[in-house]
């Protein structure tokens, strides 16, 4: 009795002193709390908006708007420059001999002459003895030995032995078009010159450079997905043997999938990839992908209850558990609560894409990727070990995971773009939760992927 009296007094003293004791947290605690409550969402949405903006910009830049340089490279039909892009002049001395030896007739025509005109300045650079004089705002003249004398082409051959030779290239009124050689001002000095110029007119064909195949392509895709999960755990509601000492509520027999009321829900996937074409039909693929996955949980409101989660022990001897207070029940309560398990993931898909069949326009392909994944944010409810309650325990949610994805698609090429559409499936290889949580959850996503691919030039 006396001891009890002293004991109570001792306990009172301890409690009093403990309650009197004060400590003041450092700023980082509030920062951490505040960041968790607000900034993470802001950061996530900001990041997501930034990703979307970046992808949209790239999309518009690559797919819709052509830069000025490309406009020059792809002018309007009929512009002679368009046929000469990337052309090179065959050295005159080499080809003139060849063409003469081949016995090919040497002819001239003013129409064909115009075809040559786009790169006349290039041609003349290769002509020995030619001197070029170009002034920006006047006609461009090529002088051959003598001063300029304008003369109709019809009388050229007659006068060729006597008259000085002139090649004049009139600058086009359109500055974007190369100057055109006008035969009316052409004069020749000798037979050799005639041959040279006729060669220029007829046989200075351009040896078009065979462009190397563009191996790198850029792909942008979007896929609305239907998300669900596969749950595995103990076959009935009894907690695992290594957790049997946990004080839990009355167990409920049955398969876990039948004891919970979960429904699939709509999510989406957004991705940007680079493809390296190894062959015509085979490509390596890598990129950045964002996934929003979720599924619905039907729960019930209740009074405050303790939700105990039995943890798997590492050495099999101890059986730790985590207890949280919750007001969510899996079974009967006084009001229905619709919860959602949500996951915001970013991943780096690495894989291959194979064209199975088709022609240049229409193709059937398959693709598969392995995706190291990081969980940006989550809103998850875990079921207690007795399957009676739901509670949140972020520390049991896995941050890093690996997903795998497979898809098949039909693609159609048009106007430099490849559009593709087809079904895909994505499966999470590791559980959404850490190894400590005895129930395993594997996310599954089914969707229809729509993509557009552009060759990078």
């Amino acid at each position, binding site marked *: 009795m006396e001891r009890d009296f*002293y004991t109570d007094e001792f306990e009172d003293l301890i409690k009093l002193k403990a309650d009197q004791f*004060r400590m003041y947290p450092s700023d980082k605690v509030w920062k951490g709390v505040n960041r968790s409550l607000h900034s993470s969402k802001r950061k996530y949405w900001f990041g997501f908006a930034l990703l979307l903006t970046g992808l949209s910009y790239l999309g518009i830049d690559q797919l819709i708007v052509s830069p000025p340089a490309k406009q020059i490279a792809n002018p309007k039909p009929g512009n002679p420059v368009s046929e000469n892009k990337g052309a090179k002049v065959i050295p005159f001395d080499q080809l003139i001999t060849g063409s003469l030896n081949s016995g090919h007739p040497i002819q001239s025509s003013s129409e064909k002459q115009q075809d040559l005109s786009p790169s006349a300045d290039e041609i003349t650079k290769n002509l020995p003895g030619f001197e070029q004089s170009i002034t920006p705002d006047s006609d461009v003249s090529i002088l051959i030995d003598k001063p300029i004398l304008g003369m109709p082409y019809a009388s050229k051959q007659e006068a060729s032995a006597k008259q000085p030779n002139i090649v004049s290239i009139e600058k086009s009124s359109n500055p974007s078009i190369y100057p055109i050689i006008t035969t009316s001002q052409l004069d020749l000095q000798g037979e050799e010159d005639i041959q040279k110029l006729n060669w220029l007119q007829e046989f200075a064909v351009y040896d078009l450079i065979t462009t190397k195949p563009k191996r790198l392509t850029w792909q942008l895709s979007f896929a609305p997905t239907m998300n669900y999960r596969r749950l595995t755990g103990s076959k009935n509601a009894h907690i695992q043997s290594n957790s049997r000492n946990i*004080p839990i509520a009355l167990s409920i027999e049955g398969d876990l999938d039948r004891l919970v009321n979960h429904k699939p829900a709509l999510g989406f996937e957004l991705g940007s990839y680079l493809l390296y074409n190894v062959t015509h039909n085979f490509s390596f693929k890598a990129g950045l992908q964002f996934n929003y996955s979720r599924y619905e949980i039907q729960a019930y409101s209740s009074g405050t209850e303790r939700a105990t989660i039995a943890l798997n022990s590492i050495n099999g001897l101890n059986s730790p558990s985590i*207890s*949280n207070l*919750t007001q969510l029940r899996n079974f009967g309560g006084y009001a229905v609560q619709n919860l959602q398990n949500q996951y915001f993931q970013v991943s780096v898909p690495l894989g291959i894409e194979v064209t199975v069949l088709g022609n240049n326009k229409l193709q059937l392909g398959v693709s598969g990727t392995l995706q190291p994944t990081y969980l940006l944010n989550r809103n998850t409810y875990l079921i207690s070990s007795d399957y009676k309650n739901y509670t949140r325990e972020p520390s049991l949610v896995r941050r890093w995971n690996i997903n795998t994805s497979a898809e098949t698609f039909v693609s159609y090429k048009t106007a430099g773009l490849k559009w593709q559409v087809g079904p895909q499936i994505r499966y999470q290889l590791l559980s959404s939760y850490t190894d400590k949580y005895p129930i395993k959850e594997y996310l599954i996503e089914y969707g229809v992927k729509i993509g557009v691919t552009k060759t990078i030039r």
Partner: protein
Amino acid sequence: MTEEAILQGCLNNEPGAQRELYQKYSSKMLSVCYRFAHNREDAEDMLQEGLIKVFSQIHTFQNKGAFEGWIRRIVVHTCINHLKKNKRFNESVDLIHATSVQIREESVPSIVQAKQVVECIRILPIGYRTVLNLYAIEGYSHKEIAEMLDIEESTSRSQYTRAKQMLEDILVRKKIIQKPSDRSGWFRIAAGR
């Protein structure tokens, strides 16, 4: 700002109200965490985790009891979960073997009054300390402690008895308290109570 206003603001996810709640309770709750924690850093981690739970579960608070008590329960549970996740706690819980632990006198800090008592509690082995904190200071029953720590109720009782004995010894040796020589009771503390 009244408690009702803070509560309502937190329910509306208003940063101002959340800050008010933090300023009002963080000091007291950090003291709670510190008694369970290994060091101040751990205590701040526990506090942060606990307050995040408080804010995220505030809609579940029903005005049946004191708001502070509700917060304190969440923080204490967070501390316990934090300790359980620590491998050292699970493997050497010392709930059974702690009687062999020797108290090193030099490790008792010479700080007076409340801090001195709290520091003496903190040098107890972690299992003793936890039971003593939960029973003597937080007011949980041995049955509740048994559930929280996954131990038998009888174990909780015996651990508490040993913890209290050890704490008494430390406090007496540090001359923070005096053992009763007569029936006038315990604890004549040099610096006063």
